[in-house]
């Protein structure tokens, strides 16, 4: 049973990304509230506890250990209806390093809720990256709510990428908040393609609390038909030489609607934070350039969106 579920989950993402294998690749597959597959590597500890509606995962990367190959996490639900709540605690100890490729797959969803509640601590001099790719079906019946509180200690590095390009978004509410100590580096990227009645809300916040902390927040969204998006990107800087940048770009077509609210707040005269936001239709010069190479309008627009979301 568990093997069949694992195979089903992996098969549903296989067309987008080949799932890595081998003894030196750590992985964990979770269907609903069941662990259906797992493999660990030295330096990586994972404890799980089943919840009624999901799973609690405690992931620790041991001090000084560098997990060379990306850790593959696979969450999902194959049935049309259900809830999956993941409570995740991540601790990356001093000078450790790990990179996670997470796939969240709901290929048949008609009424599915996926909630992620994460608390992540990246200790002094450690590095952690989390690439989260969602694979949704065509129905749009998914509510996705990833929420993370992240703590970067001195000299820590954290990068997160959220990608939802294939299938219908459904309803999505991202909420990440990161505290950055001195000399830490934060990078948050979100790329989402909304269609039909999809609704997207993105809250991404970085607090540059320590000197020389740096943050870059990038949100690129394309919307078609009646999709709607609201993006709230915030960077606050309280320490000298803190540097931040917020970049929000959204292409809007048909009857879609987008709203961007970049907030930059600087509380130290030696800090510096910038922002740029652009919302609108496809750039006419880009469109004309591609059409003057023989692409029809739809193909040209698709290529421009592909670039924005790459």
């Amino acid at each position, binding site marked *: 049973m568990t093997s069949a579920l694992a195979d089903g989950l992996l098969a549903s993402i296989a067309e987008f990304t080949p799932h890595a294998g081998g003894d030196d690749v750590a992985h964990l597959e979770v269907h609903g509230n069941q662990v259906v597959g797992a493999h660990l590597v030295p330096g990586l500890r994972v404890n799980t506890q089943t919840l009624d509606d999901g799973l609690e995962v405690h992931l620790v990367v041991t001090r000084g250990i560098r997990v060379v190959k990306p850790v593959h996490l696979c969450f999902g639900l194959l049935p049309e209806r259900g809830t999956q709540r993941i409570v995740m605690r991540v601790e990356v100890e001093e000078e450790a390093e790990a990179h996670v490729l997470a796939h969240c797959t709901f290929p048949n969803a008609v009424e599915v809720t996926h909630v992620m509640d994460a608390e992540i601590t990246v200790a002094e001099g450690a590095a952690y990256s989390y690439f989260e790719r969602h694979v949704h079906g065509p129905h749009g019946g998914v509510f996705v709510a990833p929420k993370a509180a992240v703590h970067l200690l001195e000299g820590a590095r954290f990068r997160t990428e959220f990608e939802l390009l294939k299938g219908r978004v459904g309803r999505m509410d991202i909420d990440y908040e990161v505290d950055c100590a001195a000399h830490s580096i934060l990078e948050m990227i979100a790329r989402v393609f909304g269609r039909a009645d999809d609704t997207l809300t993105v809250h991404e916040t970085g607090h540059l609390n320590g000197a020389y902390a740096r943050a870059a927040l990038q949100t690129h969204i394309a919307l078609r038909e009646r999709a709607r998006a609201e993006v709230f990107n915030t960077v606050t800087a309280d320490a000298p030489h803190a540097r931040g940048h917020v970049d929000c770009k959204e292409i809007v077509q048909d009857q879609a609607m987008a709203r961007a609210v970049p907030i930059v707040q600087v509380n130290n005269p030696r800090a510096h934070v910038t922002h740029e936001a652009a919302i609108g239709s496809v750039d006419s010069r*880009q469109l*004309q350039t591609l059409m003057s*190479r*023989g*692409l029809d309008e739809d193909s040209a627009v698709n290529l421009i969106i*592909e*670039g924005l979301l*790459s």
Partner: protein
Amino acid sequence: MLEVRDLTLQLGDKQILNGLTAEFWEGHVHAIIGPNGAGKSTLANAIMGLPGYTDVRGDILLDGVSLRGVPVDERARRGITLAWQEPARFEGLRVDRFIAAGARSKTAAAAATALERVGLDPPRYMRRAVDRTLSGGERKRIELASIIAMEPRIVLMDEPDSGIDVDALQRIFAVLAELKAAGSTVILITHSMAVLHQAEHAFLVCNGRILDKGPVEKISKYFEGRCITCSHENEPEPGELQ
């Protein structure tokens, strides 16, 4: 092969093209020169059929067939293309994808070959984005690579030397020669003497009309004092041009 017949175009309250007539021969490099505001770029845009430049009187014919009502992408599929004075930036769109978009052969090898022909090292550029991280000169050469890969019949090049350093310009001139050798017709929009001398035949445009045409040696004389300050107000009398 390409004929512009008595073309007139008004943009707002300004008459930009004013009964312009010209013939462009297959496999030749032509230049269109004239002062700022003479209508050179407008002519290129009208030939390409860009939005805002289609409400013309007169006609544009390709192989004797009118292009009236033919949209940009269809004109491109018939072999016409345009290199902009300031090429567009495409955030995130990779160079190899950009080149392949309109290429006759959509392979990576074809894109790499096109980059080599404009003097850019494929391993360094193929996976970069056509965005602000490239200089204006690099984007110009990448645009030219995309045109090479397209193998067009007619290339309109608007100010090909704009934003280009001397070395890159020599490379662009070499590509012009290659395009011509491959049978393409090239129409250079310029007010640069160096670019003009890449052409075999030139048109002098002022106030939306052809004032003179002929071999480059003849037309280049206007750069030597006769028309360099030409404006609509001091347009030469027809007799003065003989």
